[in-house]
């Protein structure tokens, strides 16, 4: 090796070692933060928090099917008993009777602090008469059986008042004493994990525990377990991405190596040719890791496309310089390649400004990868390769390719007509091209989505779409704010705008509210004569109500509820999930239930906002936020793509300094975009924002080929080596991007399906529209 070669190699090796070190310490993630906004609005922040740590993100729905009802119920009970004892699970519910005894005992014991009906008026003679009369009415109703034993201690019916506000929504079916699906054929459980929704490892562990516990208690194989929930989606999505990354990289590497071997027929050249690729891939990960701290799995999956793109430069170098030598190559071809690199970089750089973190990462990854690959080709590869570039003679392909070009040029008008047709098709269908929401980017398969829907309906699991969010400095003021908002919401229930709501203050009233209710309770000496007067004509004799007087006096003097009082009840869980301590203070969540019935499953947003106006409470419709988020991404991607396009055009215009050449260069690129998108549309693919990015990349990547034709058009020569190098480079790029089209990850698939065919079309159309060398 020559001295400069050794120096270059050592430098490269050092850089690679440093890069490897960074990668070794990088954090890789395959979770949903890829999709979550980098700069969220207050509403979006609620969405992000809910997705990462909200209760709903920690719920797993489990169904036991097969066998007979008794067997399923037994499995459900055992599953609850065993999982409930594990620290990985916060709660395991299956509707077993007795499982809610602690909750009922708590509600009953503290009824005079918890009941919204407790006011001074309630315990006047008039109030007592009305309340007791109502209780007696209820006694005669179908609910009477349950209330009868409680009447002597709760003659005013506070328990009923409390329960009336609780979830009146659909309860799951019950078979053999445990929850069952609507058709009764499956036993259902609702499990809340201790691990946060964003903790994919924790979710995976919890799911593994559920499966292994079930396998241990139902080994016969008659019973089957079905499971779904956000945690499972996260785990599956991560597995898919991990699997895809290695699969796609392997496919694209093998295919590209095969092409290179066919072209070079030399292991040495092939190894050298992969040098810029490896450097680029490493540099991409290093750049992302340093800039963002975390590298998304999908970003690494994009590497397969990068390989195809980065290998081009060494192909140009080897094929073109073989005949010319290094220095003439640098003089003749490097400026064209450099311009191509710059247009590619311009395209990827547009993504850097995206508020969609995944997109920004892809941009940075591809940008640094391509740049590094080009620089390594330019400065490291020549000294390492030396002058010994013996390539097999590929010049016999030249005439074949030139005949191909001649044929393509005959097709100019038909191609133009086809492009116009494609453009018209797209213009006519412009409203139906786009997928309407973020689910377009989700890795959840249709099958898993259907299972999730079915389980959710069977168990009436909450979907937590509507949420009122309040923030406050401390717990007490948070609870007070929740109580104030609750009063506003009670008004909305009365008018039928909402069906109901949950509030932590329902089980843990603020200290102020507790004091207020205690003050409403009269001392026994006052209460007793009032009760006697109130019940004078009632069938219920006042002397039977000693328990009532004692309980009320006990609460009046010593009644107090704090968070610790709730320990051991399921209500503690409800309070903890709705009252959260954050670094900046406390926040309260009040999930709203839609009115249901004829009023439908949607809540009218504006009246709720109006009712809460001025209270500092934020009303969030999660679905609306998701849709807004996606539309924001889409708008932004449109803007960025246009900006990227403008940057590329600007770059080309300043370099070429000829409107005619610029037009000739852009025409095949734009035609490729139109034809690819129209074909995708006709193939039934719904476009989303990654297709949009794909369009930009067709222009960014495709311009490389058009530039060579432009160069040839200028110099009047299109030598065989250049032509062959272009075809090979195009092939590897198409393989790299095309591999992504095989992916099940929509983000990668969209880019692959757009840029793969787009790159080939760009080359063909550039050849089609190149000014004829003989005329130049």
């Amino acid at each position: 090796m020559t001295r400069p070669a050794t120096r270059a190699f050592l430098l490269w090796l050092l850089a690679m070692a440093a890069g490897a070190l960074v990668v070794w310490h990088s954090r890789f993630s395959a979770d949903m933060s890829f999709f979550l906004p980098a700069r969220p609005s207050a509403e979006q922040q609620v969405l992000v928090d809910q997705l990462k740590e909200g209760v709903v993100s920690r719920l797993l729905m489990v169904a036991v099917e097969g066998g007979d009802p008794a067997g399923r119920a037994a499995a459900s009970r055992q599953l609850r008993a065993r999982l409930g004892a594990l620290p990985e699970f916060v709660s395991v519910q299956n509707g077993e009777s007795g499982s809610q005894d602690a909750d009922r005992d708590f509600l009953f014991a503290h009824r005079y602090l918890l009941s919204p009906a407790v006011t001074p008026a309630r315990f006047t003679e008039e109030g007592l008469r009305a309340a007791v009369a109502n209780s007696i009415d209820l006694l005669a109703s179908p609910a009477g059986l349950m209330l009868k034993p409680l009447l002597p201690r709760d003659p005013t019916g506070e328990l009923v008042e409390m329960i009336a506000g609780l979830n009146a929504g659909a309860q799951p079916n019950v078979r053999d004493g445990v929850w069952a699906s609507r058709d009764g054929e499956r036993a259902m459980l609702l499990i809340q994990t201790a691990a946060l929704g964003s903790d994919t490892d924790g979710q995976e562990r919890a799911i593994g525990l559920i499966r292994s516990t079930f396998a241990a208690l139902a080994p016969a194989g008659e019973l089957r377990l079905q499971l779904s929930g956000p945690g499972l989606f996260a785990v599956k999505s991560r597995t898919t991405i991990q699997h895809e990354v290695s699969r796609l990289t392997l496919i694209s590497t093998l295919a590209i190596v095969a092409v290179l071997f066919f072209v070079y027929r030399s292991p040495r050249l092939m190894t050298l040719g992969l040098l810029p690729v490896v450097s680029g891939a490493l540099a991409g990960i290093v750049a992302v890791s340093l800039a963002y701290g975390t590298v998304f799995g999908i970003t690494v999956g994009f590497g397969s496309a990068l390989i195809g793109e980065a290998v081009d430069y060494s192909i140009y170098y080897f094929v073109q310089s073989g005949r010319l030598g290094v220095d003439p190559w640098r003089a003749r071809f490097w400026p064209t390649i450099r311009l191509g690199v710059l247009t590619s970089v311009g395209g990827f750089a547009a993504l850097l400004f995206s508020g969609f973190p995944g997109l920004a990462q892809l941009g940075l990854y591809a940008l640094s990868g391509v740049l590094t690959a080009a620089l390594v080709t330019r400065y490291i590869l020549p000294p390492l390769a030396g002058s010994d570039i013996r390539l097999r003679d590929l010049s016999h392909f030249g005439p074949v390719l030139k005949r191909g070009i001649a044929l393509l040029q005959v097709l100019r008008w038909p191609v133009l007509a086809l492009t116009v047709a494609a453009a018209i098709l797209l213009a006519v269908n412009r409203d139906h091209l786009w997928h309407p929401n973020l689910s377009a980017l989700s890795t959840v398969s249709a099958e898993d989505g259907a299972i999730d829907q079915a389980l959710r309906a069977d168990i009436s699991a909450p979907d937590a779409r509507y949420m009122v969010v309040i923030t406050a400095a401390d717990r007490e003021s948070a609870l007070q704010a929740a109580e104030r908002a609750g009063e506003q919401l009670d008004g909305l229930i009365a008018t039928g705008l909402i069906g109901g709501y949950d509030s932590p203050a329902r089980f843990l009233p603020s200290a102020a509210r507790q004091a207020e209710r205690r003050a409403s309770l009269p001392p026994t000496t006052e209460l007793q004569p009032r009760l006697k007067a109130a019940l004078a004509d009632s069938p219920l004799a006042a002397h039977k109500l000693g328990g009532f007087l004692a309980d009320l006096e006990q609460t009046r003097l010593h009644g107090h509820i704090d968070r610790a009082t709730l320990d051991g009840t399921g209500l503690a869980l409800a309070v903890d999930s709705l009252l959260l301590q954050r670094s900046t203070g406390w926040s309260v969540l009040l999930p709203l239930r839609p009115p249901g019935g004829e009023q439908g499953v949607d809540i009218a947003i504006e009246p709720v906002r109006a009712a809460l106006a001025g209270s500092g409470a934020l009303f969030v419709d999660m679905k609306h936020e998701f849709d807004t988020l996606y539309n924001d991404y889409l708008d932004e991607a449109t803007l960025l793509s246009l900006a990227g396009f403008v940057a590329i055009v600007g770059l080309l215009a300043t370099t070429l300094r000829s409107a005619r050449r610029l037009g000739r260069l852009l025409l095949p690129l734009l035609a490729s975009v139109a034809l690819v998108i129209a074909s995708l549309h006709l193939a039934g693919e719904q476009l989303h924002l990654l297709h949009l990015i794909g369009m930009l990349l067709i222009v960014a990547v495709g311009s490389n080929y058009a530039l060579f034709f432009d160069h040839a058009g200028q110099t009047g020569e299109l030598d065989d080596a250049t032509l062959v190098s272009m075809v090979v480079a195009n092939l590897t790029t198409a393989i790299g991007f095309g591999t992504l089209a095989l992916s099940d990850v929509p983000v990668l698939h969209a880019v692959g399906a757009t840029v793969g065919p787009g790159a080939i079309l760009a080359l063909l159309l550039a050849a089609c529209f190149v000014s004829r060398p003989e005329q130049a």
Partner: protein
Amino acid sequence: MIKRLLGCLFLLAIATTASAAFDIGQLMGDLARHKGGKAKFVEKKYFAILDKPVVATGEMTYTAPDRLEKRTLTPKVETMILDKDILSIERDKQKLSINLANQPEALAFVDSIRGTLSGNRAALEKNYALHLAGNRDKWVLTLLPSDQKIASLVQRITVSGSKNQVRVIEYLQADGDRAVLNIDPVETQ
């Protein structure tokens, strides 16, 4: 003459045999032929804890075989509809729907009324031992729960009536409280 007397005796004999042999099967057959109708009701509920019974009045409509609507008018308006296994209760603008299939004890309880009204002997005998007394014009059917779980709710249900019309249903609950439902048909069919 003798012949005629004999004939009368014979007829009388047949009649008395028929009367003596008025059995559950025949009652069920009669009831099953009753296709429904409207009735006023007065329900008195006696609770140990209350000094006086709670009285409710209203109308009920039965449509064979499995729809029963009970509309209480006094002291408070309340509508209860039993349609197949769905029990809906509407009271003070509050609506509540219960799927009885989820609650086997409640279902058995409801089946006692429904089985009687529709003359469905098999449904009744699934959960109760049946005893019939009286004749076609004045019969009393007693249902004693055979299942321990149901027995913990209700000791005995006594249904009495005339021909195919149920007149009184009395529930004696396990704790000694009882409810008596008097039914007065508005139009017989």
